């Protein structure tokens, strides 16, 4: 009965949000297993401190409930765009410097990379569907990886994957709030439509 009251746009929001959430959860699952294999292949320790590794968008930085839906989705979109670039760097570093023969590992990173790209695209769609503009790509490009030591490359890759995992958690939470918000506004909108 509730779906009958929703407008097609709201339904589309809902469906798209569901797909985004599903994809985010899939990414989270894949990143979790990728982290395991990454740590193993790089000879690292999961408990290693990565606080000093910069240039990776952190999921913990948020303003709580002060953000609007657009800001929330925009922050997600920017983060995943950054992760898209960062994962590309990680993949290239692994191919060229660290694990050149481990094609299965590369395929795992590539898979996550593609999913992150798809997630960014879906977030763009969601923003557009909600009537918000797509935020522009941030100009800050990746640093020259050739200047980094191999150890820095490894730490950076680990940080990227860890933060990506954190971001997926945050994204699911954000998207649920968006769904909640859109349902509230959609129902009101539907009610108005009926009145009209």
């Amino acid at each position, binding site marked *: 009965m509730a779906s009958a009251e929703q407008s097609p746009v709201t339904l589309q929001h809902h469906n798209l949000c569901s797909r985004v959430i599903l994809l985010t959860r899939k990414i989270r699952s894949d990143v979790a297993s990728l982290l395991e294999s990454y740590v193993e*292949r*790089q*000879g*690292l*320790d999961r408990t*290693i*401190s990565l*606080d*000093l590794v910069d240039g990776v968008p952190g999921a913990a930085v948020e303003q709580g409930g002060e953000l609007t839906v657009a800001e929330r989705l925009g922050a997600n979109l920017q983060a995943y765009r950054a992760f898209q670039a960062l994962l590309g760097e990680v993949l290239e570093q*692994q191919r*060229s*410097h*660290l*694990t*050149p*023969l*481990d*094609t299965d590992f590369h395929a795992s990173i590539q898979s996550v990379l593609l999913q992150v790209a798809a997630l960014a695209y879906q977030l763009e769609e969601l923003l557009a569907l909600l009537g918000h503009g797509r935020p522009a790509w941030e100009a800050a490009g990746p640093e020259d990886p050739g200047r980094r*030591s*191999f*150890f820095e490359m*490894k*730490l950076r890759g680990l940080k990227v994957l860890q933060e990506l995992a954190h971001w997926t958690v945050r994204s699911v939470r954000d998207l649920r709030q968006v769904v909640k918000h859109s349902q509230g506004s959609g129902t009101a909108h539907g009610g108005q439509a009926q009145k009209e």
Partner: protein
Amino acid sequence: MWDNPSLRCLLAIAFLHLLSLIYSQETGFPEAPGNLKCITHDLNRTICSWGATSSANLGLTYKICYTNSEPFSPVCIETEGKRADIPVAMGSTNIQITTLNASGTPLATETFVLPEENVSLIPLTPQILNLSADFSIYTLYLKWNDRGSVFQHELDASWQIQILRKETMETVTLINYDSKLTGKDSILSWNWTSDIPLECTSYCVKIRCYINEPYFTGRKEWSEWSPIRTVPEKDTKPNSAMVFPQDKVVLVGSNVTFCCLYNEGESIKYMKYGSKSYPLFRLSKWSSAIKVQNVSASISSGTNVWCSLVPDGLEGTVLFVGYAPDTPQNLNCETRTFITITCSWNPGRPTALYTQRQTKYILFERISRENVTCKVDELNKKHHCDFPVHANQNIYNFTLGASNPLGQAESSLLIDVNQRVHLETPDKFTVSANSSTNAHLSWYIPGNLIQIRLLCQIEISNSNSERQLNVSMAGAENSNYRARVDALHPYATYTFRVRCSASEHFWRWSKWSEEKKITTLEAPPARGPDIWRERSPVGETLTVFWKPLLPSEANGLILSHEVSCYPQEIMLKAHEVPVPLNSTEIKLGGNDCLIIVVAKNRAGSSPPSRITSVDLPSGNVKTELAIAKGNGIYISWHSDPNVTCGYTLKWCISSGSEPCTVDWEMFPSNATDAVIKSALFQPGVRYNFSLYGCKHNGYQLLQNIMGYMKELPPKVAPNFTVEETSSDSILVKWEDIPVEDCQGFLKGYILYFAKGEKGSSKTSFREEDKTEKNITDLTKKSLRILDLQGKTSYRLDLRAYTVGGIGPSKDLYVVTKENSVGLIIAILIPVAVAIVLGVVTSILCYQKREWIKETFYPDIPNPENSKALQFQKNICEGNTALKTLEMNPCTPNSVEVVETRSTVLKIEDTEIISPVADSELPEDGSDPETGSHVVVSYCPPIIEEEISSPPIDEPVGSSQVIYIDIQSMYQPQVNPEEEPEINFVTTAGYKPQMQLPINAMKMESHSPTEEDLDKTAGYRPQANTNVWKLDSPDSPVSIQSNNENGSFGSPCSINSRQFLIPPKDYEDSPSPNNTGWSFTHFFQNKPND
């Protein structure tokens, strides 16, 4: 006064003169030179310096005159300082130094003899020209000028180089470096590799020199240390913490030192190599290190080394541990196209290093002095390199160099490119067949092959054959090559493929091309079919048979067979018989003809096969047996000189209900035997063959033959019956086994027979019981079995056998008839024996009748005739029992006997159980009490009554009034000890009725008294009590009692006192030694004996 200059000058001169005088007087003069020291830097000039007592110069100058030897005049020089430069002279030098005042007046003169030994050779202080560092390999490079031009000739020089830690000025190393001075300036260089990264701490370097002039006899000393030079610093104030070495590659097994540089305010928490923490040691104020020994190969991403800092920080590096490249193995260079030479190799042991660190290969050709860098695909493990083929160069001397950060290796190979041709796989391979026997092939091979000839191998295969055809052809440039294959079979499917190599210098075949399959065109059948004919029994029709041609003979698909009949060179009629029929029927109409058969396919007809229809009459044709041989049937026949055109052996194979298939084989006229094989032959099936001889005017049946491909045991047992039986023989008859069940030629029958009942377990005969009869005469159809027992069941078993074995059996059970004579004998003998026994028994009984009578029917005395039993009437009054006696002869009173028995039994039990009784027994066992246990078991109370009345002193013997004669034979007071000695024979028999002591028989006192027990004995049986004792198995047994009371517990006959009903409990007791009914009594207890 002092303002006058002239005065002052005068005074000064005077003073100096005064001083000089004083000095000259003391040591000479104060201005006199002394303490002459001379050194040389270059063995050319000597620098001498001296001192003077007066330290004031005051315008003094020195005149030095020196001379090396007498003939030379001294050379003088003047100098203002206390130092002079004079040439180095051989031997000693005389030096005279004169101190001159300002006016040139000598103040003092000193002469020195300077031997060479007093001159020191001190090289000039070296100067470091350059000090640089290669941090990646922890190496310092030092350069300096040896100043060899100072010396005129070659000299050995030694250099001492000292490396110190800058912060602590602690010597890290001090090494000597020898060089040779060549007379001209040379730049010397030296490098030093640290075992820890140079970044970890700062170093400074200084150097000094020593010249070893062997002919210089003076002192040779080290030069002064050069000024210190410092390695570029990195550790004093690092911008951020760092771990060194950064991303280094080392050999497996190396010892590696890692240092961690940190900033002010930081300290190191720990340093880890991999996952293991190592102990830190301090290098400088801002640097600490760990040392890892014998590192093992790392994973592809390297081994991490990290430094955890306090309060917060993490720095690290990656160490790649691997191996130097192995020598390339199995280097092989060959050309495929004469455009490039491809070298391939096996890299050997993996280096565990990848990407930038992986092994790089360079292929160098020494003749052309060209090299190419090889691209290695580590992912696919492909190691090969292409080198261009040069025109006019056939010999190539390759060196493959392998290098990685840890080392290098190489492998060489010299080849003649013409001898290393490995052609590409033939491409675009086509095959076309435009005739029935040949095919055209074409293929393409890339490459500039003009300078060689090709050898190509064409493989031709079909379902049953395979062959290779080698074709040589001239090479061409990127060309198609063609070949033709002949001698193919018509209408056959072939598979072709081709490969090529260099013809002149074979190296390797190329890979096979792809396969191509073609079928050649059809050709007429190669020969006519094999034919045979059979005339119908009446002779009106003739059936013509032919065999299908083999595919190799048919040359195509046989469509039909044409059968013609030529009676007299004129064709009667031609039949076109389509495939798959292989026979046809021709009506002869009473005329014979020549049959001609041809096979036809699309390409044409086969040559004709001919056969005449004429059957010549045959005489008495014999039937022979063939022999199985291998998988065939061996048939032989006698040669017939009239057979001119061969023999034909015909047979027919039937399968199931279908009419049999005629088959035949033809043999030349000189053949006399053959082994006929057919896939249709089956073991155990009889085949009939007919041998025909081909004569000039027709075929004649010569012989019939039967045979088996393999003989088997008969399938069934022969049916047999028993025709006749008697008491000792059986006549058995059997029938023939049907031919189809024989499965071989019957060789005979085996008849087994043995005793056996029908219904008993139907197992095989027991070997020891059975009888076997082998019947080899096959015409015999019956057999009589003799010597059997009458009225006995026999089991018969008949089997047939062939060469293949014995067939199944069939059982029959027969009972022979009864033998009447034996029966009669069997009846008569027992009857006769019974009669004889009866007669003998009767005779014996008659002879022993007296004894029998006495034993079994003794005369019993009448009590009425006894005085003892003549009771008075008053005695018996009031007593009903006695009244009975008045009326009747004394009869046993069983009540009285029971009471007596129970009393005695009680006593016995007491005696048996009581140990006291045992102890009281006399050793000889002659206790009269013990012996008196025999209590009279039968006691007529009337006797007691009568006996109790006489006076006590009346002799006992007076009561024994009857049978005195018998009593005298009896010994009533038998000592128990003497009892065993009593002869049973003599004591047995009738016993008199002994007297009974009156006091012992009183009913009030049943216990035994001290009186003689013999007196208590009342009526005695007419038998020996000892015999009873022994013979009665149910007698109570007491050890002390000597078993005299053996009659208790059983009713007994009045007359015999023999137990009438012996208790069951004692029936099984051991049989006595002496039985009362034994035959010994029969014969020994004769009264007359």
